[in-house]
């Protein structure tokens, strides 16, 4: 098509901008994105929204959810074996599980990404040693590392979060290392290196803008796996402990009520699945948006 506008400069959008544009066109990914935002809002403002306080106990034990014949709208998701409102506990739990996952990922990313960039920019022995150590750390799944660390630190939510952060750091280092070292071998980097650019300048203007999208993708992947890890540790009883409304611990605590009060098991699990699914939908949408740019 003939461009009639002579004066306007054609703006070349950066890699990240193009990925975001394609991401907006993907309706499934956008649904995931809005659900994810909803969870973030619940984690931030949960205590203001929740209908009951955390220590509230009604006299109706094991009341079914409101859509059941014998349910009541006062306790929308029903009550558990101690008469606590399931909906309120799920909303409070958002802070522990979802917020905890966010904190873990932020922490792991802040440590892992700089280390990955450092090892990706370096060459020779330093890089090779890091490469081998990372191979080691990656062959053991993050949940197993988390169980190991928890078993030595002791149970509890704080130790769980520390353990999962420690387990996620190697994933970030490894992923950033691969992204940086493939980027740095490309010819345009050689070109600016020949122009006399320092390593810092290459990193800031050459490498970082081009690996931003893959780092965002890695963050989403790491987030979904740390959500699974937090809830799994809570479920087997070595993570968050009983009265805390952490989703996995709620599920683990009510697994004996499976037959008499199935909603105390299905609802927390459904919330866990929705949160992980929304994160995965966003991650998959980002990956597709990134791949389309390559083709």
């Amino acid at each position, binding site marked *: 098509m003939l461009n009639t506008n002579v004066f306007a400069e054609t703006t070349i959008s950066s890699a990240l901008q193009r990925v975001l544009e394609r991401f907006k066109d993907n309706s499934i990914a956008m649904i995931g994105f809005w659900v994810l935002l909803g969870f973030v809002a619940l984690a931030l403002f949960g205590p203001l929204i929740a209908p009951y306080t955390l220590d509230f106990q009604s006299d109706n034990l094991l009341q079914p959810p409101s859509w059941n014949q014998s349910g009541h709208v006062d306790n929308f998701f029903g009550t558990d074996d101690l008469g606590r409102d399931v909906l309120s506990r799920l909303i409070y739990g958002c802070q522990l599980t979802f917020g905890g996952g966010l904190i873990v990922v932020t922490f792991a990313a802040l440590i892992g990404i700089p280390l990955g960039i450092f090892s990706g920019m370096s060459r020779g022995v330093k890089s090779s040693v890091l490469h081998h150590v990372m191979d080691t750390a990656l*062959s053991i799944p993050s949940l197993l590392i988390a169980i190991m660390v928890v078993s*030595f630190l002791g149970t509890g939510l704080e130790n769980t979060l520390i353990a999962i952060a420690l387990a996620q750091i190697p994933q970030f280092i490894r992923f950033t290392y691969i992204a940086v070292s493939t980027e740095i071998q490309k010819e345009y980097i050689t070109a600016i290196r020949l122009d006399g650019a320092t390593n810092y300048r290459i990193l800031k203007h050459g490498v970082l803008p081009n690996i931003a999208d893959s780092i965002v993708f890695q963050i989403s992947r790491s987030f979904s796996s740390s959500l699974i890890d937090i809830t799994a540790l809570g479920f087997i009883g070595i993570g968050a402990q009983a009265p805390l409304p952490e989703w996995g611990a709620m599920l683990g605590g009510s697994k004996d009520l499976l037959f008499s009060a199935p909603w105390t098991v299905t609802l927390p699990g459904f919330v866990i699945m929705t949160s992980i699914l929304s994160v995965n939908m966003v991650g998959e949408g980002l990956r597709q948006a990134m791949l389309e740019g390559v083709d």
Partner: protein
Amino acid sequence: MLRYFIRRINLLVITFLIINLIAFFFQKNQTIFIETDGNWLSQYLVFVWNNLNGDLGVSSITGKPVFDELISFLPATLELCFSAFLLSFIVGIPLGTLAGIYHQHWIRNLILSVTMVGYSIPVFWLALLLVMNSSLLLGWFPVSGRYDLLLEIPQITGFGIIDVMWLEPQARWPALMSIVSHLALPTLVLAVVPTTEVIRQLSNSMAKVMSENYIKAAATKGLSKWQIVTRHALHNALPPILPSLGLQFGNVLTMAMVLEVVFAWPGIGRWLISSIYQQDYVAIQGGMLAVATLVIITFVLTDLFTALIHPLRRREVYAQH
């Protein structure tokens, strides 16, 4: 190949030493290893030597050697993992191939969407749902355990399906049926983890292979799509994904450990978690060392096997370094 072999074995040894080093620093109970004078390096070497000889110390709760306990619990977990992997290949390979062949087609989108839901489901929750629907309400499968408590199956290999052979002929069949019906539900749930991985990896690998020139050549020759896939595409799409499936073994083993809590499966996961409750540090350390070593050995073995049957893998590693 020899160079590749040495490189991988080297990785195995270094990894083993690193894991031992971590365990060595973490250990709180100093009574495990023989009191040696001298610096920590010689203590560390004694520690590694003991571990290599299977001397993992004595559990402070049960009073039995940790190694013996491991040997009695590990087969139950491995039986679960192997059957889950088998099921995931049976289900995953056809579905992954379908998703790979029909590029940008509703079949691919459907399979990949279901896969995404599959790996977003927390497996322990799925296990509870299936127990509720198929065991408690319909009574299809037993709720928990490895076999009927009335049966007396000898512990020879530890794998129930094999141990049945040592029973008297008329007792074999009912015992086997009991074992299989107890195994069905945990296998079904655990298989979700590797199946989604097989489908995702295979569909990507298959899509890549299907765009190669030799596939076009085969199509020009007049082969049907079925012939192309079975004769040419699968042979080239399967080997590259083997190493990442080897990595999945660790994931499956960990998930099996979590599921053992739900199904009261007498495996290593339940043993380790009860050790954590009881703060039996000797048992925790021995169990973790064994599991981590097993995971890494599996990864290295699958990698070597892949290099053996798929020469391109060797080239990838040479090019990297």
